[in-house]
């Protein structure tokens, strides 16, 4: 399974996203990282180009709801149903909010790498089923 990890918006704090990239790689996932300050259009384009199965967005500046909304709109405008998730400085009340918008999961600061890896193991099963 291939994961595209991305940094949308202007936030440049990338320690967390890189830690997760290492963690997923060590757990056997193929990981592509976009680098900083990407627009939603650029992120989706790259996900399609590299044939990613899922998109992760790391956001620490508090703009997660605005960005998630944009992601949802662009996904539906382009008639895509690739799953996407969010990680970063996310208040617990926004976790459900993000899921309501369309995120498959939202991981707040403090989430263990192993938790995200476990989540991916369950995702892997879903992605395989969808493909079959």
């Amino acid at each position, binding site marked *: 399974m291939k994961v595209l990890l991305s940094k949308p918006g202007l936030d440049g704090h990338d320690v967390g996203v890189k830690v997760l990239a290492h963690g997923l790689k060590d757990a056997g996932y193929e990981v592509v990282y976009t680098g*900083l300050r990407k627009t939603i259009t650029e992120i989706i384009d790259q996900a399609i180009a590299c044939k990613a199965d899922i998109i992760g967005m790391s956001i620490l500046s*508090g703009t997660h709801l605005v960005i998630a909304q944009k992601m949802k709109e662009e996904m539906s405008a382009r008639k895509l149903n690739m799953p996407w998730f969010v990680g970063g400085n996310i208040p617990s009340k926004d976790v459900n909010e993000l899921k309501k918008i369309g995120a498959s999961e939202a991981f707040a600061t403090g989430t263990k790498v192993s938790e995200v890896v476990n989540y991916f193991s369950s995702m892997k099963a879903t992605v395989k089923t969808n493909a079959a």
Partner: protein
Amino acid sequence: MSSKETKTATGKTAKDLNVKPVHIESGFEVNPVYTADDIAESSIKNEMPGEYPFTRGIHPTMYRNKPFTIRQYAGFASPEETNERFHFLIKNGQSGLNVAFDLPTQCGLDSDDPRAFGEVGRVGMSIDTLEDFEIAFRNIDLDKITVSLTINGTAIILIAMYVAMAEKLGYDIANLRGTAQNDILKEFIGRGTWIFPVDKSVKLVVDTIEYCAKHVPKYSPVSVCGYHIRESGANPVQEMAYAFCIAKAYSDGALERGITIDDFASRLSFNFDIYGNLFEQIAKFRGGRRLWAKIIREEYGAKKDSSCWLRMIAGGGGGGLTKEQPENNIVRSAYYALISALSGTQTMALCSYDEAYTIPTEHSAEISLRTMQIMIHEMGICDTVDPLGGSYYVEALTDRFEKEIREEMKTVEKWNGIVEAVATGKIQESVSKQAYEREMGVQRGEIPKVGVNIFTRDEEAKDVEFHPYNQKAVDAQIEKLKRIKSTRDNIQVQTCLETIKKDAQENKNLMPSIIAAVKVYCTVGEIVQVMKEVYGEYKEPIFF
């Protein structure tokens, strides 16, 4: 890094005493006990504070007459609100201001730019034009309060605004004091608010050093940040080593402009991180201070003592604070403050206890301020200079740090120097790997963290809070920008922007043309745009 045992004459190594060996984060072992023999060869016995190479502090009396400056990071949302917060902090005894800017300002975008959507005023104050600056600093006496601008990618524009504002208010810029962060090389390593390619970015930093050396000699145009490099995963030795390599890169650029090391070195300052082992941090600062003095005198031939001073802001680092049991961060911060004072800092700023999950509230910012004030006024911290001087352990560790930092700097040389190491992503790759290893160490419980992996308690997790995003303030900011654009002299604006472009093409120092441009209310975004047209933009190497 080597981890060989340093056996003492009295033989008190871990093996001798039959205890487990202990390695500090920088990678080398520390003995269970140190004796006079461990510092028999040390130069420290002949050193006094205020004397070269300044291991014991850059001034002979340090805090006896005047404690370190307290400068908490502040500033959010609109310039109007920021101004109110500044007045609150000054009223409460703060002697310096440390200004935060929002991400659009840091990345060179105006508030009405589509890419700034959702980010205006969110993590700091938004600045579009000089008018915002004038509002933020309304009724603040620039002679009495020192101002630190936490800005990097657009630092040359913000410094130009500070100078322009001071000139307009009638201050003599020859006496103007203050600091800008303006360390773009660390932004490529750690914080990511770069705009232009690496070499052009360094050129702009050098422009500010040259301009200030000639016209604003008391202003500190650069504060080299080991802080963010450490937060990105560097260990304490690397933090100092990379910061020194960066400071040398800027200095080399300035020397190429024909100014001498004594024209600017005394205005260079540093911003360092504090978390982790108490003695390791103190030795880091004392050993680093000695090494920096030697570099500036021996390699650069500085004559003035003040050129050799490692002047620093050092306070509690976010990397040490936890979201779990956040009140514990008040205790951690007090230790960090103690480390900073025992290390002879010039300026101190502490992260607030809630900073792991929110922008500090007025209450938490006040606790940080009081932490430092209690230390100054109740603990006797200012009475004696370098109170740890002569401690066998601290001095032995200080000597070791001087040596280890020097060694690490040689590694950077092997990577063809810091500019190349940053442009190719060599440093980013190495520190991000370390950050991962450290995080996994904490998550596996190998690196103890109270409240996180030991002495945990079942508690409702403290929730992340953001200052509510103030759409009204954003709308007002955009309205203000519109009004300025329609009322300013747009012919002058065009002329000024063309001059910047021409100066950039001719590789001239951009400070004069940018100062002229901000005075006629050119926006940050407009100025950055013409610079991009000449310099291009940075292409990030992707590493993790």
